[in-house]
């Protein structure tokens, strides 16, 4: 029972941290607003004035998109790491991110309208993930090792194809916009993009919830989970579908942002254990805090220059990744 209290406390603290990060992120920028002005603008959306315009038209959608991207990627990573029982799994490992990125690069090159990105990203993420899962089939089940190998291979393939698209595009401005998008960027999205992405993310979370009891049993090992009544095959498909939806939601509004799906699940497990009933809900605010804060740094560290958030997260993520990898080795 003490364990439940500790976990509930951790989730509560993460939710509070998210609220604080959102408020700070709306306040901080090229023009820094006092928190009082932020809350006044939030309370009166039609109040007029510069603060209201900045908050509602510029900062709030962007901050919420950052939160959505972080929450979706972290939840996706938590699901995949739980299912594969591998702490190095994340959406980029199952090919979903690379497939979605390639599809959107093609869409940009062909001049497809931006509202279609979420749908394109989802179709591509799901198709890639299904292709990877099919390659990983062994007998009647999906082999964990083969899934990871196939994911890495397919990701490399799509990374190569994306580079090819960039070189084939004749217009320099289109090339630049693909590159900017691939670097991971939250620039230039509004409420419409947010609502589309939120729809996919919400669907992903709902699908994921159906796999939670099975993911808990898988912690005891695949054979034990099956003996306890888990349909392993179905669980794997559910997790892959949920993770595709979540990845698509994130990739469609932010491009390729790595490391969040990899690192945040580790932090969450350290805080509230590997029980999916806690780890999955906790991963959402945790991932959101990381991306909201990183985005705040990205756009306020060296104004008017904006650092690409994907690059910034990689700079922070690589040391964290190495720390986790070496710590695992030491523990083993």
């Amino acid at each position, binding site marked *: 029972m003490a364990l439940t209290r500790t976990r509930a406390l951790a989730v509560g603290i993460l939710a509070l941290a998210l609220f604080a990060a959102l408020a700070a992120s709306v306040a901080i920028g090229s023009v820094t607003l006092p928190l009082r002005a932020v809350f006044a603008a939030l309370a009166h959306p039609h109040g007029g004035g510069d603060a209201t315009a900045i908050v509602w038209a510029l900062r709030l959608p962007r901050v919420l998109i950052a939160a959505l991207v972080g929450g979706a990627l972290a939840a996706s990573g938590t699901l995949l790491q739980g299912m594969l029982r591998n702490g190095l799994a994340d959406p980029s490992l199952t090919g979903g991110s690379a497939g979605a990125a390639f599809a959107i690069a093609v869409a940009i090159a062909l001049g497809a309208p931006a509202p279609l990105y979420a749908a394109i990203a989802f179709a591509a993420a799901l198709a890639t993930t299904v292709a990877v899962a099919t390659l990983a089939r062994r007998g009647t089940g999906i082999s964990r090792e083969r899934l990871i190998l196939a994911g890495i291979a397919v990701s490399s393939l799509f990374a190569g194809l994306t580079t090819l698209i960039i070189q084939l595009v004749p217009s320099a401005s289109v090339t630049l916009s693909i590159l900017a998008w691939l670097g991971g960027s939250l620039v230039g999205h509004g409420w419409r993009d947010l609502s589309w992405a939120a729809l996919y993310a919400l669907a992903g979370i709902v699908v994921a919830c159906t796999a939670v009891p099975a993911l808990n049993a898988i912690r005891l090992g695949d054979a*034990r989970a099956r003996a306890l009544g888990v349909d392993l095959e179905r669980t794997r498909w559910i997790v892959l579908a949920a993770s595709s939806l979540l990845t698509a939601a994130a990739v469609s509004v932010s491009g390729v942002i790595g490391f969040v799906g990899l690192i945040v699940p580790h932090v969450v497990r350290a805080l509230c254990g590997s029980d999916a009933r806690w780890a999955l809900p906790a991963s959402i605010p945790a991932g959101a805090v990381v991306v909201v804060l990183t985005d705040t740094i990205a756009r306020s560290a060296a104004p008017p220059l904006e650092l690409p958030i994907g690059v910034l997260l990689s700079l922070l993520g690589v040391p964290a990744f190495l720390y986790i990898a070496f710590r695992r080795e030491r523990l083993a």
Partner: protein
Amino acid sequence: MIEARALALGYRGRTVLRDVSLTLRPGELVAIVGPNGAGKSSLLRALAGQLAPLEGSVVIDGVVAQAFSPAALARRVAFVPAEEHADGEVTAREAVELGRLAHRPWWRWSGEADDERIVEEALARVALTGDAERRIATLSSGERQRVWIATALAQRAATMLLDEPTSHLDLAGAYATLDLLHALARDGSAIAVVLHDLNLAVVSADRIVLVGAGTVLADGPVDVVFTSELLTRAYGAEIAVRRTTDGAMVAVPRRRVGGIAR
């Protein structure tokens, strides 16, 4: 009750066992013994409905095993696989709670009062009540084996099948585990257990199933199965059956390591 009817078992076209027919009845502790690679674990998995037979069928309570959903199967047969790496962070209680998984719909993430009572009973039955909040990484092999048995008990299945539950245990630990299984059988469960150690099978089982030479060589009470001829045929090495001064049977290899005959 579980019935195996004319089973052939194997993987990818390679048949490991053929012509296997046997029945597991309530109140009986059955030991499955035989050499490495003979197909003991395959037989157990097939009886648990976890391995589809190449030929023949496994019938559980009158229904072919493959017709059950995984959850329906888990409510009838509690299968305890051989030691497998588990997340060491899981506490004993959390593991045992997972035994109730097949008894509730997927949208209910936690058990109800009834489930909690069953979990408490299972923990008490294996004498782990005081250690329920310990993480399984901190438990000894014997304690961990008891966690898996308690998890199986929480499934409230009529049949319990265990794959080498004594493999990492010392003699006292093995006896404690088998005492527990014996008591469960006396309470009316049908129990089958794969054992590596022939002499443990002799002291614990009501019936022994001897697997060897690609089939079940014998199935019956200890003194029927435990003959020098059958054991020698199963293991491909000369094995004598002796009686100790107090009448207990023991299987003894006929030669010592290094080739000296005894």
